[in-house]
């Protein structure tokens, strides 16, 4: 699976890796982040 050129849905979690961090990672691989959400379950 190549991230380059893909549309990314970044589903982060507050106590794991947040959406913004996933977005930066996948963008650095040449993907486009189309949705960034961070959840919190506490």
């Amino acid at each position, binding site marked *: 699976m190549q991230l380059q050129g893909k549309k990314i849905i970044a589903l982060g979690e507050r*106590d794991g890796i*947040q959406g*913004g961090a996933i977005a930066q990672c996948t963008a650095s691989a040449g993907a486009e982040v189309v949705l*960034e959400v961070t959840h*919190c379950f*506490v």
Partner: protein
Amino acid sequence: MQQTTVQPVIRGVRFFLAHTPGLVRYGSKPSRDIDRDPAVGDTLQAHLRGYADAAAYPPNQAFLGAIHPDALASLPTPWFRHAGCGERWGPHGEIMPEEEFYGWLKIADAFNLVSLDTDFIESIRPALDAHPLCTPADLEQLGTGVSQAELDAHCAPGTGLAGDMPTLPLFLRDGSRIGCFHAAHEVDATLAADVLLENLTCKTTAVLAMRTLLAQLPIDPMDIPYVLNSGEEAVGDRYQRGGGNLAKAVAEMSGCQAATGVDIKGFCCGPLHALAIAGGLVSARVFPHVVVVGGCALSKLGMKYRGHVQHDQPILEDVLAAVAILVSADDGASPRLRLDSLGRHTVAAGPSQKAIFEQLVKEPLQRLGLSFGDIDKYATELHNPEVTEPAGSGNVPLLNYRVIAGLAAMGKEITPAQVPDFVAAHGMPGFSPTQGHIASAVPFLGHAVDGLRGGDLQRVLLLAKGSLFLGRMTQMADGVSLLLERNG
């Protein structure tokens, strides 16, 4: 004019728990699920525990100061099977049964939002009369109640005091209806019964924490000039949703006639922001005392009930929690609030956990010339894992402690092999009810003050994170930290 600053200290901390199984149905998650499928209500009710079990529950005993959180590590799990007898009053506060709490809800009700059944009121009056924080004026506020026929009329669709806006029936754990909660406007969603119930439970629990604090510490309520409320409830109407100032409402009911106050909001790190501001006000001699309060988060009741039901365990999110903290000028004995230690997760820091923890832990420690190991205990998010793990949310405090230990290892202060020992020594098992802003750092404050004043603690770092992104105004989180240290 030359003016010197003074050192702020934490003079005392008190907590309040209300065991409210009958209100679990009005938690956000349960209420939405019951709306979709009324049978969920029966499932919920079958998994609610009684008062004796909630009082004996070791995490609640730790919250009220009867046992130290570290003691939980050696107790057999699951903790909810613990058969010990639970005292109602711990060194840091009480856990109140739901019957009496409904009475206090009525006592705190300034707008006739609560109607209670006449017989029910008479059944709880003796217990309220005997309660050390209940005054004759409070008992007057209870009133004489209404009949079950009137409750029927209030609760029938379209016949409540606010027209088509629904009235919420109030139940005990056994399903008996003992009253109802009215909407305050015909169309205003911010004054709907469910919203006002959240707000009034927040006010009531904060008042009981504050009254406990003021009754048990050697201070006159009239000497409190300022109150900061750090709860998350959006008090206001349609033109100023969340307009706030629950702080003044709490002061009014706590005998603080010489006080005013304001609300400080910041999701789960609201209380630490409020503590920092309180410390600043005391330090600058604006006020000699500031009380920081945080009421409960009714919406969180039963939030993870599905996981609990799935694992056939009791629904553990059945308590409302509140805190009250007295910040005063240096008395030479109480733990110092080190304002120069303030750690802040800044806008520029970015969303990674590394950035958050570096700004909340590593950078402040460096600034003070301290190492990770110089902090005896880190008070971070202290959510009870027995609540979160069955729902797949993991062990939040343990994860936080591993991150802190990981940072210490990255800085070569400890080796990776020493991480578990660091976590065990400088962390603690989670024990807090998952009550929003209440669960972050502040649940340990009572133990911290005891340990820093008379015990073996030298330094405690308080840290909290706030999930700002939930409000959809920014993708950012927030975080703040503060050091408490032994005086003298």
